[in-house]
């Protein structure tokens, strides 16, 4: 199982400072769960906001997309014996409830809505260490 997670993480097309996945704890053909800890020195805290660092919503959305859609997509393509080629985000619709401060660990849980014609659409939720909902929404990506 651990090997399976690492295989997926190795295939992610991101690197520092734009990789927002630390580990996966569960994955199957319908869902995935993973975590990321926002370190104190992430590049965006310097400017968002001035003297008051808060994780931007667009980065939370990216974190949800990387764990909830891209990791699951790599897993699903692997089941079909295909390698991911080029991937693109195709839509996001996210509501935010709580802020994420530097140093916080978040857990992302994603459930597949559909995977058809190379498009994966998921319902994704992000929770903080107290298991409180940070944000949730529908995110879709497509691969060529």
């Amino acid at each position: 199982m651990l090997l399976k997670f690492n295989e997926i993480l190795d295939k992610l097309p991101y690197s520092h400072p734009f990789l927002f996945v630390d580990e996966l704890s569960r994955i199957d053909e319908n869902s995935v769960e993973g975590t990321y800890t926002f370190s104190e020195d992430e590049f965006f805290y310097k400017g968002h906001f001035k003297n008051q660092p808060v994780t931007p919503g667009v980065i939370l959305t990216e974190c949800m997309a990387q764990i909830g859609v891209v990791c699951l997509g790599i897993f699903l393509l692997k089941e079909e014996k295909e390698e991911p080629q080029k991937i693109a985000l195709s839509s996001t619709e996210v509501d935010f409830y709580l802020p994420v401060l530097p140093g916080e660990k978040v857990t992302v849980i994603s459930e597949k809505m559909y995977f058809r014609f190379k498009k994966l659409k998921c319902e994704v939720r992000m929770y903080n260490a107290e298991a409180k909902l940070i944000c949730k929404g529908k995110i879709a990506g497509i691969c060529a």
Partner: protein
Amino acid sequence: MEEKDLNAQLKNIVEPYAQNKEALLKFNDSSHFIQDLEVNSANLVDIILDVEDEFDIEVDNDSMEGMLTVEDAKKIIRQKLQEK
């Protein structure tokens, strides 16, 4: 199924995804989903899923790849309805 009804049903499905509203007004057999109606490829998938629900059919990968214009879509819908 009446030609007119099929056109209207299809137009209804496409409407929320079409960026080019002028092309939508001129919706006809030769309307190209991506070039004329300016649907993106991800939303073309949604159009096909909506077509599947509306007509209770299943569109396979090969048919999907051939679905470039309204005329193509109507051909596929008629063919899948006949196979039912």
